[in-house]
């Protein structure tokens, strides 16, 4: 904060009539009788004086005595007044030391010379005390004003330096916190061109433990530092929660709550959050206040509209974290941007606009270099007129997780002090089932086991699958076959949403145990739901048949995938009861 600078040094507004002040005047005149007269006048006005008998003396006395105003005879021996004035002005530097020439000269040329060498005024002989007094007063006022200006200028320049120092520090902190995450993944292209040191636009990407990719594009109100400052808690939360496996809904709710709390009125963050789900070939979106995003599915352009207010406006009670789920297959692309793109103006002041953007995208919908084309087109459009907003754009392509080329950050060395033998029972029931996602919480507990954090991706996948199966197919009774019909994808989520809202009875009972064996351990998870169960024997047989027929998992349908994934990750998978109980073992090593 910059308070230290404004406490006691508030910028002065020049007071109308300063208190008469005793000034020091340098009187340089080679005539002693003239000096006597001047001294008498100056003293009568309450000022102090320093005498000099010629030009050289005047310069020397100026240096010694630092007078406020100099009275200088024009014609003097050794060094005349003109040359003395030149030297004095040079010595005074940026201080305003008025020089009044004392002169018996009265031709215009000589008087002009007085001014051209740096004199500020002249006083003709015979001296008139009243005129001299008026001049001294006028120059004193000017001198004070100049001093005030100098002080204010110094304050401003000091504040500015301070500000830059602080910005520099803030910038490095900012860059560490709001780092780019895994934006360098092979399926991402992005453009981020800030208008000032700090960017009002944020672009963050991070992998969940499951391998799914979370992306956030945020556009804060304004530009520069004030806009960027909100990006830090945003990034912290986004990275922290994503790494812990929270869902997009949870994250967006937290972000909104945080920003609503910290941002002043009138400040908010337009945002688009994405979850790219590689296993499911889905993209989940939450958009608030940004221009339409485009999903390019084959040669189809689908618009994804912002159906929410920006983050940081609504209180948690009225905030809606609901997301869209869209099918997105290998090679499909998703484009999102801040309004800097569509609001780029040309020299005529007209906007680049959404229509032009959509037309360009439609025209080159299959072009590999579409991203570069858009960027070039926007820049060509703006021509010589510089962008007035941060320009941010991102292209996201669906590919397999293995192709992303993301190097996972080295996990911190697992602490040896965590719990190794424990068991946990967790029961979630009734409407809590629809409103709360316990997976991140459970994951946090589990990865406290020394060494197990390294396997958090697999553990996350196992718990998510178990929980989602228990909730969707167990408690909510959804038929997974629904998804495989042509428009079943959307239908499935619609029905799911409806049943969640109606849910008032039901439970999921979770029991987890862990036992170490020195090198690793055994994690046993048992999930029981209140659903009607299913014919698990038939399903397991189907999975086995598919596997033995050598059909790749990718060709499998949704219904089988959850179980076949579990079967792959776990050393044991068994159903009990009517199929409403499942127990799996995850054995891990090192």
């Amino acid at each position, binding site marked *: 904060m910059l308070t230290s600078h404004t406490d006691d040094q508030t910028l002065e507004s020049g007071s109308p009539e300063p208190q008469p002040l005793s000034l020091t005047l340098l009187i340089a005149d*080679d*005539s*002693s*009788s*003239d000096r*006597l*007269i001047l001294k*008498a*006048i100056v003293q*009568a006005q309450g000022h102090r004086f320093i005498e000099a008998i010629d030009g050289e003396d005047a310069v020397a006395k100026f240096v010694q005595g630092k007078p406020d105003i100099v009275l200088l*005879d024009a*014609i003097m021996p050794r060094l005349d007044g003109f040359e003395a004035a030149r030297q004095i002005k040079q010595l005074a530097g940026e201080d305003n030391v008025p020089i009044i020439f*004392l*002169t*018996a*000269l009265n031709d215009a040329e000589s008087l002009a010379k007085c001014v051209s060498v740096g004199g500020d005024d002249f006083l003709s*002989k*015979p*001296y008139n*005390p009243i005129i001299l007094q008026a001049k001294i007063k006028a120059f004193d006022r000017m001198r004070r004003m100049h001093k005030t200006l100098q002080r204010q200028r110094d304050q401003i320049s000091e504040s500015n330096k301070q500000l830059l120092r602080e910005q520099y520090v803030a910038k490095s902190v900012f860059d560490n916190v709001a780092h780019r995450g895994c934006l360098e993944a092979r399926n991402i292209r992005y453009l981020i061109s800030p208008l000032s040191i700090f960017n009002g636009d944020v672009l963050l990407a991070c992998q969940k433990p499951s391998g799914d990719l979370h992306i956030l594009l945020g556009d804060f109100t304004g530009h520069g530092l004030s806009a960027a400052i909100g990006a830090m808690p945003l990034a912290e939360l986004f990275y922290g929660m994503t790494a812990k496996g929270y869902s997009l809904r949870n994250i967006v709710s937290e972000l909104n709550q945080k920003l609503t709390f910290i941002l002043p009125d009138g400040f908010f963050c337009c945002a688009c959050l994405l979850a790219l789900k590689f296993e499911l070939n889905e993209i989940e979106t939450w958009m608030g206040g940004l221009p339409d995003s485009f999903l390019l599915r084959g040669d189809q352009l689908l618009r994804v509209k912002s159906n929410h207010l920006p983050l940081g406006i609504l209180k948690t009670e009225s905030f809606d974290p609901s997301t869209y789920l869209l099918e997105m297959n290998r090679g499909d692309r998703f484009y999102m941007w801040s309004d800097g793109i569509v609001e780029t103006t040309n020299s005529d002041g007209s906007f680049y606009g959404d229509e032009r953007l959509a037309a360009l995208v439609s025209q080159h919908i299959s072009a590999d270099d579409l991203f570069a084309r858009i960027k070039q087109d926007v820049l060509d459009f703006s021509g010589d007129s510089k962008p007035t907003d941060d320009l941010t754009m991102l292209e996201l392509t669906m590919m397999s997780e293995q192709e992303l080329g993301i190097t996972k950050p080295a996990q911190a060395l697992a602490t040896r002090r965590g719990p190794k033998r424990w068991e946990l029972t967790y029961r979630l029931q009734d409407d809590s089932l629809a409103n709360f996602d316990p997976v991140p919480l459970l994951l946090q507990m589990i990865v406290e086991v020394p060494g197990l954090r390294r396997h958090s991706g697999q553990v996350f996948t196992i718990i998510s699958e178990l929980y989602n199966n228990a909730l969707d197919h167990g408690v909510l009774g959804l038929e997974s076959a629904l998804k495989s019909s042509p428009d079943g994808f959307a239908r499935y989520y619609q029905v799911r949403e409806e049943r969640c809202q109606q849910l008032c009875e039901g439970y999921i009972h979770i029991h987890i145990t862990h036992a170490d064996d020195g090198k690793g351990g055994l994690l046993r998870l048992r999930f029981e739901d209140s659903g009607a169960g299913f014919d698990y024997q038939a399903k397991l047989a189907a999975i086995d048949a598919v596997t033995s027929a050598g059909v790749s998992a990718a060709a499998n349908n949704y219904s089988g995938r959850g179980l076949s994934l579990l079967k792959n990750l776990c050393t044991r998978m068994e159903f009990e009861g009517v199929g409403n109980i499942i127990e799996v073992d995850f054995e891990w090593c090192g």
Partner: protein
Amino acid sequence: MSADFPHVDDDIIAELQDLMAGDFEVLVSTFISDSTTRLQEIKQTLESSDPADFGKACHSLKGSATNVGVVRMAELCRQGELKGRQADWQGVTDILEEIETEFELIAELLQSKV
């Protein structure tokens, strides 16, 4: 034409007496001794070959003469200054003599005002 000017400007004298109060006497004696020196300097410039020096010397005396209100002497100095500036040696000795005569006169006049 210098005869058109009074020897002293009484208003200026009155103002100075007022301003200097007890120091008026010091002012008069300072002016007289200063001017005596300056007259010597003017005389010396006649021996030099540069009329500008003569003009400058006259200019200096003119300044202090103006300030103490001895108007006719100031006018004579102005004429001498002009000669110097025009590099005109003609009649400079006459002017110098006139200044000296005028100086003797006003010196007495000023002392009488003390």
